[in-house]
């Protein structure tokens, strides 16, 4: 079960890693898509959906503008879904608890993604230099090849991030689940709510919208009123 599942996870991770910057940008890489996709391919779509829903908003306000590189939430989503599904199969703990545990343990490792992404972009600069040299010597056939080779760098960066996320998770998660299984099961429904709440706070903090407090407060109270009427 472990190695076939890891193989599937690697394929999804590379696909999402390329979608993130290099190819398409159809947003398959967003946690709300990448995690359920991984979960579906591994036979536990509900766990994937939980991981994706918890993670989606957290770093969404960090925009990939200019040279800025946001934390790699795609690889965190894919890696954590894999870890949560494996932990669920091994321990039999509730999906919400394993999803929360894998995210809490592996999210900090996801920061490594920024480093690997940066390295991929630096490696791409070498491709540009090669392309310029080729043009200087009057050869232009290789230009397209140099450009497409950049995708290997982004794929390698995704794989490296996934390795850190999954590797770190595999090392730390068993200990975490062993010593904190009881409180984790009790706290999981609250942690499940905490993630999107922090995401809402993070998004609101970056928005410069006229009458934001009024709009937020109004829709919040109205929403709660509608939910109370159900």
């Amino acid at each position, binding site marked *: 079960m472990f190695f076939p599942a890891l193989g599937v996870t690697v394929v999804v991770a590379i696909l999402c890693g390329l979608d993130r910057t290099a190819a398409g940008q159809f947003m398959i890489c*967003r946690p709300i898509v990448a995690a359920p996709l991984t979960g579906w391919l591994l036979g536990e779509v509900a766990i994937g959906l939980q991981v994706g829903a918890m993670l989606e908003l957290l770093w969404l306000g960090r925009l990939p503008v*200019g040279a800025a590189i946001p934390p790699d939430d795609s690889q965190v989503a894919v890696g954590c879904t894999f870890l949560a599904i494996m932990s669920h199969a091994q321990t039999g703990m509730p999906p919400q608890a394993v999803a929360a545990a894998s995210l809490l343990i592996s999210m900090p490792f996801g920061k490594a993604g920024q480093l690997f992404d940066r390295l991929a972009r630096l490696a791409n600069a070498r491709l540009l230099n090669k*392309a310029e040299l080729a043009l200087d010597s009057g050869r232009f056939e290789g230009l397209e090849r140099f450009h*497409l080779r950049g995708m290997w760098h982004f794929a390698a960066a995704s794989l490296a991030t996934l390795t850190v996320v999954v590797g770190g998770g595999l090392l730390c998660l068993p200990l975490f689940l062993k010593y904190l299984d009881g409180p984790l099961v009790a706290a999981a429904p609250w942690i499940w709510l*905490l993630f999107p*709440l922090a995401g809402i706070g993070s998004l609101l903090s970056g928005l410069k919208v006229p009458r934001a407090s009024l709009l937020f407060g109004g*829709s*919040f109270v109205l929403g*709660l009123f509608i*939910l109370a009427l159900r």
Partner: protein
Amino acid sequence: MKLPRSVLLQVLSRSFLLQASWNYEQMQSLGLIYALTPAFRRYYSGAALLAAYRRHLEYFNTHPYLATTVIGAVLKLEEQAQHGIDPGFTVGEFKSALVAPCAAMGDAFFWGAMRPVAAVVALLWAFHGSLWGPVFFIALFNLPHFWFRVQGLIKGYGGGVRVVSTLQRWHLSDWAICLKQVLVVLLGFFAAVIGAAATDNLDAGIAWGLCVAPLVLGLCALMRRRVSPLLVVLVLSLLLLSWFQLH
């Protein structure tokens, strides 16, 4: 020489790989060359093709979804240059003038507004375990994505320098502001859904859900002071775990 539809389709499909070799020196310049190549091979050959490549292998950075607008206009200008039409500026100058506004408009509209709106709509479904959430997200986000890619190329190639007025007519910055207001409303509703779920956890009356609003505003204030959301989640989760460990 007017470009046939098949070549424009090739240019469009190649624009999806614009950022394959993104780098810190010239950002998307090789990607631009890659997208322009099918058309350039129609326009030029030999030394002229080499000169065209040299002309465009320079700093290029714009929003990937609006890049087709620039690419289309560049193709039109190259075509006009072949016919001896002088617009009064070089293709490079026009390109440099257009990329920054396209980047700013695209970033504000797609990254700053459309993507979060699609994400919150998706989360309203996903939060209740519905798989329609991811489907809605992909559909809602990619409809304008594809529309702008295709229309950008059509309007850019059709209009040349007049694409600037098309960009103004699209009012992307105004749409971005409207969408951000919609986003705030959706975030308020989503916070209410979370508040209702929290009262379910506690078996308390739904009015207690009102407590979620100050919590969100407190988190927002913390993050405005540059506290990392990751740190906030980790610390609050540890506090929750400690609470349940002790009780």
